[in-house]
């Protein structure tokens, strides 16, 4: 389980996240909406442990361990994994090696790559000259190797073409154990009970909802998590009234 309590975060002297409370139970996936600059990426980076996001109040507990002060790699080893919006290029490091590094065991990188249609890019330097959509698939490939329990996706479908979007969507569903076809001869209920992976997905468009059953939607607005309800309703509300109105109206109805 991921538990965030009354989290306040400063970046470069500005408070960018305020009083964040969030709970993701094993098997649950949440989506996060919010206008540009509202702090969505910041929240994910804070959960991952980037030290420039200074936690000035509150705490983060993952699998019962207080990770508020833990370095990035320890969080990764505990099972936190992230698909980045804008990952850096690592010159001279081949994507193939990177994917292998992500896993603690020997893996068949080519076989994994096949699943996200990435084989002909494996021998390129990590993120070097990758197109927008290629970056997304590279990030997914790394997460597949990593086998994390809490998966943070920062806009996984942005910049992905219409054909690849189903590939990306289905891959995320698999990573989150939400693909119903994969496991036969088990009832849906049973599958749901056995699910342990947790997900937090940032999306602007909500296209990803077509592929992954999601438990909850949340809106981050000016550093504050303002509402949580059915993600489709939120999406409808945002497109009808805009973020500001949406946040206000749902607060009222709560």
């Amino acid at each position, binding site marked *: 389980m991921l538990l965030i309590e009354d989290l306040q975060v400063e970046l470069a002297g500005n408070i960018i996240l305020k009083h964040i409370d969030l709970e993701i139970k094993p098997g649950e996936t949440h989506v996060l909406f919010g206008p540009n600059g509202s702090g969505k990426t910041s929240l994910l980076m804070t959960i*991952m*442990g*980037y030290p420039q996001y200074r936690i000035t109040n509150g705490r983060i507990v993952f699998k019962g361990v207080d990770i508020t002060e833990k*370095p*990035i*790699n320890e*969080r*990764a*080893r505990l099972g*936190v*994994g*992230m698909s*980045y919006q804008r*990952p*850096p290029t*690592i*010159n*001279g*490091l081949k994507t193939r090696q*990177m994917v292998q*590094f*992500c896993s*603690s065991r020997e893996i068949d990188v080519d076989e994994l790559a096949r699943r996200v249609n990435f084989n002909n890019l494996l021998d390129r*330097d990590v993120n070097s000259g990758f197109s927008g959509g290629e970056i997304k698939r590279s990030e997914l490939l*790394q997460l597949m190797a*990593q086998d994390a329990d809490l998966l943070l996706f920062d806009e996984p479908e942005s910049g992905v073409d219409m054909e690849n979007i189903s590939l990306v969507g289905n891959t995320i569903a698999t990573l989150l154990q939400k693909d119903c076809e994969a496991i036969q001869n088990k009832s849906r209920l049973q599958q749901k009970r056995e699910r342990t992976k947790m997900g937090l997905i940032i999306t602007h468009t909500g296209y990803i909802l077509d592929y992954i059953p999601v438990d909850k939607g949340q809106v981050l607005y000016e550093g504050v998590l303002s509402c949580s309800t059915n993600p489709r309703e939120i999406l409808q509300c945002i497109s009808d009234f805009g973020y500001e109105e949406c946040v206000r109206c749902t607060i009222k109805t709560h």
Partner: protein
Amino acid sequence: MYDKDSLREKAAKAAHKKAAIGPDIDLDEFQRSPVEHEYLDDERLLKISEEEKRQFLMAGVDVSKKERMGTYLQMDTSVVHCDTKQEGIEVIPIKTALEKYDWVQDYYWKLASADQDKYTASAALDLHNGYVIRALPGVKTVYPIQACLYIGKEGLQQNVHNIIIAEEDSELHIITGCSTSPHLKKGIHVGISEFFIKKNAKISFTMIHNWAEDMMVRPRSVAQVEENGLFLNNYICMKPVRSLQMYPTTHLVGDNAVARLYSIIVGSPESEYDVGGRVFLKKPGNKAEIVARTISNGGRIISRGHLIGEVPDIKAHLECKGLILKGGLIYAVPELEGHADGVEMSHEAAVGKIAQEEIFYLMSRGMDEEEATSTIVRGFLNVDIPGLPPQLKAEVDKAIELSDKDVM
């Protein structure tokens, strides 16, 4: 054809001439008298001490000679091993070659000048030995030829002269190392190298330096590339050295001739490296690339590069990238000189540190900070060298990996 007396006369005049760059060295502090070593046949070569084997290996030389087309080994001033396995590939000690073969006279001191400075002068006056490697027309090596110049004698000045010739349509791959006994305190290596790449020929020359802390090193090399020829020069030095200064020059004299120079230098504390290269692009279609990756772990590194485009329709690029990891200095000096309309020349120089963002990214995949840092450093040193056969690329990687353990 050179004239012995006039060469000596010319050199004698420059006996005290300081080099244009690099700290001056008093050559009177070193001995140049010959140090004899017994010739080692294949069997005895395999029986040298493990320590010596390792020193050779770090300089790219495998005494088992597996996957090598020829071998030249020199210890101090004596040739201890010299042979070739392939028809059409010649490996000959230069002193023998000068005595026996007239054709060698046409190459000796043809590109380099004996009066350039006191080091070239000394090599002309007091030559110990060196190798002549030649590929006959149309002959291509499958495996590289290996050469090693080793210094074991305390206080020695080793004077070496090498001539490398790729005749028309031939292809020659050479891996060469310089190394010293791990116990050596003081010594100087002076090495003259002249490369002749003829029409449609190709040479890849990979040099690995593996010096001792107090060594002085003054290589002097010049290459000439004819029509459609390719000269690929890789230089790796990841070990301490007191002072290393070299500025190899390449002349592209035929249409479409190409030169690519790559160097990887990791600078240790109290070591000074002044390295670089210069390429003259003299004919249409010439291409040149100089790529340097330098890391300072507390050493002083001057990384030079000079491209001179003399005619239109040439293309040249210079790339100097440096990382300062544990103090020290990196001084990048990129120079471009275009002498005609229609030259295409560019450079890219950057000196900095490892980006935190990259370290964090790798940490978020489970590496600790140290692993992440060394992975990024290794990536930084891992330059793609177009045209280098995978076999040689593996040697380069191996050399980096071997040194890696000591350096990082």
